[in-house]
């Protein structure tokens, strides 16, 4: 700790940071643009000027940029100094010279850092009367608008997009006051993190295109703290609603998970909530006829399911909340409750859960992943499965640079200097994968091979770390395996990543062996990050009985051993092969399906009940770490949809808090779930927290076509939040921070006012509760399995492949995401394509059974592998075996093409 004096007041600060960061940490107002809390300083904008004095006797002082000056012990500075203030006013004046002053029509207006800083710096009279510089804007794809004329040249966009997120198609162009930020030509921004530009840009150059289509000012949105349901990372978000439509999603800072950034699936994948296809009312289906169920009939129609008589099978879902799954379990009984995962996923997930209880391992949070100094990924395509973690891994490889910088006494926040010093020196990141991944550009080693060979390599790494882990079949990758093992054992904080999506439990076991071997060496718990695909995969698996396999449920139904089934928010055609599902569903007597949107499964139901979407209910989910998180309701559903648990709850309707409490009490492993609930007594005078801002407008006008009287605002009896402006908003207490705002800070950068310190935890906020306790040593070294085998000529080994845009069932039904989706594809090597006589983009039939896909030739995939795209319903991966054959088909599979694939190795003739 160091002491500094700011305008006569002494503060305790961290000398490893710069003055700007420390002043902001102390809650002082000091304007800035180019500095970003997690991207450090470059000193470009000159907005953060302060006066620094040599000592107490120095009355003259010198202007310095606070972001480029260390907060050294004994520093004396002044923010209020006239010269410093004048400098800051001049800087803003310069920045505004060519600015179009189009705030009224700018999507950033009202939450614009440039507006805030202009006010803060006191520039309020325009003197510049010469010509402005103007720019041409670019088409950047379906997510992002480009309005270069609003640019203030802070370089944040390219620093985030390129330096931080590894994107290569956005760069600074030209120079002097013509400097331009864009692509080399019009075209879709390739990075899967492009949406963060909207929040990183301090003005309105990059704005949310989906939001523009149904735009509202920030203060007119009804918002609440939420959790992204796009994957198992569980990033925190702030969805905003107006006029009964969900209009956008922005990042909600969580110091352990997403920090300041989310991925484009999370940001742009919400639109299905507004879809016309949403299920709106309970209905009964008789053959082709759909008949709504009137309110008064409901009781009797559902009676047979609510009676609790044996014989009802309940199939839960990894995309449903804990409460809904738990309610279903209560209704049908433990023995009849199934997780709804495919058999294979269930087996892998149970293994994950078992390892999650073992104390030799630790599940790293995203923040902790960033701290890893040597990483090995076994089989998972992290970018497409858990995108936010891929962004964290890009930061982890920079730990080497930070270490080098420390050796040269270069502060970590000197962003450009640290990069310049380290050049291409990175911490090791080894990737074992069936095909090239988006992280290969920062990887130290990439082993690309058929799935079984990856398992062998994984065990080989473990074997070179410990004799106990058993000798694997020798593989051609032994030398690499040894190198990786050496890197891991030399690291201070090694990280092993595996998961269930690669479809090989052997990889998870190999990962466990590696971590166990490292733990034995270092006598510390080792970071073992095991990824699962969906928002609540772990939650539902914690609730379900290990032995209850989906295949058994389906065969009980097919055989008539069970006559009724309730399917909770799950399309079974994504969980098992189509024939088996059809046989089961046609074999049973009565099928009740609860869901938000129609699926292949709802179309077979006798009774369909509509459920609310993530933003329409309060719910808890368990992320990949075992972290339970609470997501608040943002807005009401105006149809007859209910939270799924409400349909299932046999007792009184009850409120969601009661449901969460009951789950905490009764469900094993969920006892800390109720910690997530905020206590209304903590808030000012026990007042609720409003979901609408104090500036929320149009409350009367927005319903004027119905009635000019302002209606009574709906009461939310369920939650600590209210559906109106009434109540006391979070001022500094961030427990229920539904919108980030502080006096003078209208943009998202107001978040610093809610942090304990910059980049620290939110004041009184909740980062979630780790539900799974590591008390035991439940496992030991696994014996190597699955030696790779040559397959016959023309027979390809199947490796599942995922896409950030498309593989997630719900976000794939959002308009913006659909514009980035591709055809279902099968990826093979150029050699295999050659020998099969196939070309890029050909339509191919899988196993000659009529399932179609587009052929994608990838330059870095092992010959003999077929990467099969899972998701988007076109290919049912469960209908495929471990190997497949391909033949050319004349029928065209789809019209989306494959050029938008998020892969790094699309093959091109001649290159």
């Amino acid at each position, binding site marked *: 700790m160091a002491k500094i004096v700011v305008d006569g007041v002494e503060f305790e600060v961290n000398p490893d940071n710069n003055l700007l960061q420390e002043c902001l940490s102390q809650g002082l107002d000091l304007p800035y643009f180019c500095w970003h809390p997690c991207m450090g300083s470059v000193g470009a904008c000159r907005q953060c000027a302060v006066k620094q004095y040599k000592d107490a006797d120095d009355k003259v002082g010198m202007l310095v940029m606070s972001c480029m000056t260390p907060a050294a012990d004994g520093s004396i500075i002044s923010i209020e100094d006239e010269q410093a203030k004048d400098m800051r006013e001049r800087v803003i004046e310069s920045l505004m010279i060519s600015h179009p002053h189009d705030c009224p029509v700018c999507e950033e207006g009202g939450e614009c850092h440039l507006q805030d800083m202009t006010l803060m710096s006191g520039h309020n009279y325009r003197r510049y009367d010469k010509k402005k510089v103007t720019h041409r804007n670019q*088409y950047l*794809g*379906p997510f992002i608008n480009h309005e270069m004329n609003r640019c203030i040249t802070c370089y944040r966009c390219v620093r985030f997009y*390129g330096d931080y997120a590894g994107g*290569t*198609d*956005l*760069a*600074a*162009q*030209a*120079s002097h006051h013509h400097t*331009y930020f864009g*692509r*080399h*030509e*019009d*075209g*879709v921004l390739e990075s899967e993190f492009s949406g963060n530009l909207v929040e990183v840009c301090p003005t309105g150059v990059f704005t949310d295109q989906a939001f523009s289509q149904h735009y509202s000012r920030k203060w007119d949105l009804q918002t609440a703290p939420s959790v992204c349901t796009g994957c198992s990372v569980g990033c925190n978000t702030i969805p905003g609603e107006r006029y009964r439509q969900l209009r956008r999603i922005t990042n909600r800072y969580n110091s352990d998970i997403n920090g300041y950034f989310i991925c484009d699936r999370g940001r742009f994948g919400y639109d299905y909530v507004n879809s016309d296809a949403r299920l709106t009312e309970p209905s009964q289906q008789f053959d082709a006829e759909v008949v709504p169920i009137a309110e008064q009939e409901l009781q009797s129609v559902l009676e047979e399911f609510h009676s609790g008589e044996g014989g009802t099978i309940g199939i839960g879902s990894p995309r449903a909340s804990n409460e809904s799954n738990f309610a279903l379990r209560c209704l049908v009984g433990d023995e009849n409750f199934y997780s709804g995962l495919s058999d294979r996923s269930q087996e892998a997930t149970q293994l994950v859960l078992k390892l999650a209880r073992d104390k030799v391992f630790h599940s790293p949070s995203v923040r902790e992943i960033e701290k890893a100094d040597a990483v090995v990924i076994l089989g998972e395509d992290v970018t497409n499965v858990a995108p936010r973690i891929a962004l964290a891994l890009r930061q982890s490889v920079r730990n080497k640079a930070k270490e080098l910088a420390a050796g040269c006494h270069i502060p970590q926040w000197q962003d450009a200097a640290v990069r310049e010093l380290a*050049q*291409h020196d990175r911490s090791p990141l080894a990737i074992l994968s069936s095909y090239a991944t988006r992280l290969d550009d920062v990887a130290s080693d990439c082993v690309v091979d058929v799935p079984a060979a990856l398992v062998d390599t994984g065990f080989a790494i473990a074997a070179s770390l410990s004799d106990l882990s058993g000798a694997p079949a020798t593989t051609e990758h032994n030398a690499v395996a040894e190198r990786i093992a050496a890197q891991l054992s030399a690291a201070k904080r090694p990280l092993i990543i595996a998961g269930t999506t690669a479809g090989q439990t052997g990889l998870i076991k190999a990962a466990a062996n590696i971590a166990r071997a490292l733990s034995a060496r270092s006598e510390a718990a080792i970071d073992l990050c095991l990824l699962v695909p969906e928002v609540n995969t772990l939650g539902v698996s914690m609730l379900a009985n290990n032995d209850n396999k989906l295949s058994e449920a389906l065969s009980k139904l097919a055989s008539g051993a069970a006559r009724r089934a309730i399917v909770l928010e799950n399309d079974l055609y994504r969980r098992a092969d189509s024939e088996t599902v059809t046989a089961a569903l046609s074999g049973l007597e009565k099928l009740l399906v609860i869901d938000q949107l129609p699926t292949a499964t709802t179309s077979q139901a006798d009774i369909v009940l509509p459920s609310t979407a993530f933003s329409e209910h309060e719910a808890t989910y368990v992320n990949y770490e075992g972290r339970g998180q609470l997501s608040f309701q943002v807005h009401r559903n105006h149809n007859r949809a209910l939270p799924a648990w409400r349909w299932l709850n046999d007792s009184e309707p009850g409120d969601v808090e009661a449901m969460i409490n009951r789950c905490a009490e009764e469900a094993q492993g969920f006892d800390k779930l109720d910690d997530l609930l905020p206590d209304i007594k903590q808030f000012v005078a026990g007042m609720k927290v409003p979901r609408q801002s104090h500036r929320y407008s149009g409350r009367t006008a927005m319903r004027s076509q119905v009635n000019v009287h302002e209606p009574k605002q709906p009461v939310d009896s369920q939650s600590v939040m209210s559906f109106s402006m009434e109540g006391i908003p979070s001022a500094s207490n961030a427990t229920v921070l539904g919108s980030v705002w502080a006096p003078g800070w209208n943009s998202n950068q107001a978040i610093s006012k809610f942090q304990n310190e910059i980049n620290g935890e939110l004041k009184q906020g909740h980062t979630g509760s780790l539900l799974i306790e590591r008390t035991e040593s439940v496992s030991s070294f696994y014996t190597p399995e699955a030696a790779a085998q040559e397959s016959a000529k023309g027979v390809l080994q199947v490796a599942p492949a995922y896409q950030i845009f498309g593989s997630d069932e719900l976000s794939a039904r959002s308009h913006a995401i659909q*514009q*980035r989706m591709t055809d279902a594809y099968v990826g093979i090597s150029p050699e295999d394509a050659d020998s099969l006589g196939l070309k890029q983009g050909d339509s191919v039939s899988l196993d000659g059974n009529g399932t179609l896909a587009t052929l994608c030739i990838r330059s870095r995939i092992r010959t003999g592998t077929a990467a099969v795209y899972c998701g988007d319903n076109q290919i049912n991966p469960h209908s495929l075996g471990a190997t497949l054959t391909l033949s050319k088909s004349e029928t065209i599979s789809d019209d989306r*093409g494959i*050029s*938008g694939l998020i892969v790094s190795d699309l093959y*091109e003739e001649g*290159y």
Partner: protein
Amino acid sequence: MSNADVIASSETLARKLSADEIAEIEHEMTLYPDKQAVGLEALKIVQKHQGWVSDESLLAIARYLDIPVADLEGVATFFNLIYRQPVGKNVMLFCDSVSCWIMGCEGIKDDIKNKLAIDYGQTSEDGEFTLIPVPCLGDCDRAPVMMVGEELHRNLTPEKIDEIIQEVRNKK
């Protein structure tokens, strides 16, 4: 414009680098430890052979060196001696800095403008000359100065401008 269209349009753009260009680029590879440095060299090499750097050339270099085309464009558009638009066979780099200004370069510029009917950034109708202003050419004791191709011309007068133009036209 759809995603697929945009990607397809750039794919058809890249041209093939000539053997000479490749040989020179490969030589530069031996002089710099990093291929980003070679990127700038490659722009100069291609410009030497083609007269300017077209979109097709830009893409070709980016592909050949496997460096991001956006970065390469950022570099190409930063430096004033990389031409991203076609230029005439003889680029007139006309010094408009302070010593030349004192010595009357503006009159000489007007003279060129009249004789060739071109202003800064323009190419004469016959495609022979492009007039570009350049910062101080380091020949201030013999101002006004201009470079035409690789030749430096000093103590410019309207008569000298006639001679320069004539010489180039005679060579045709």
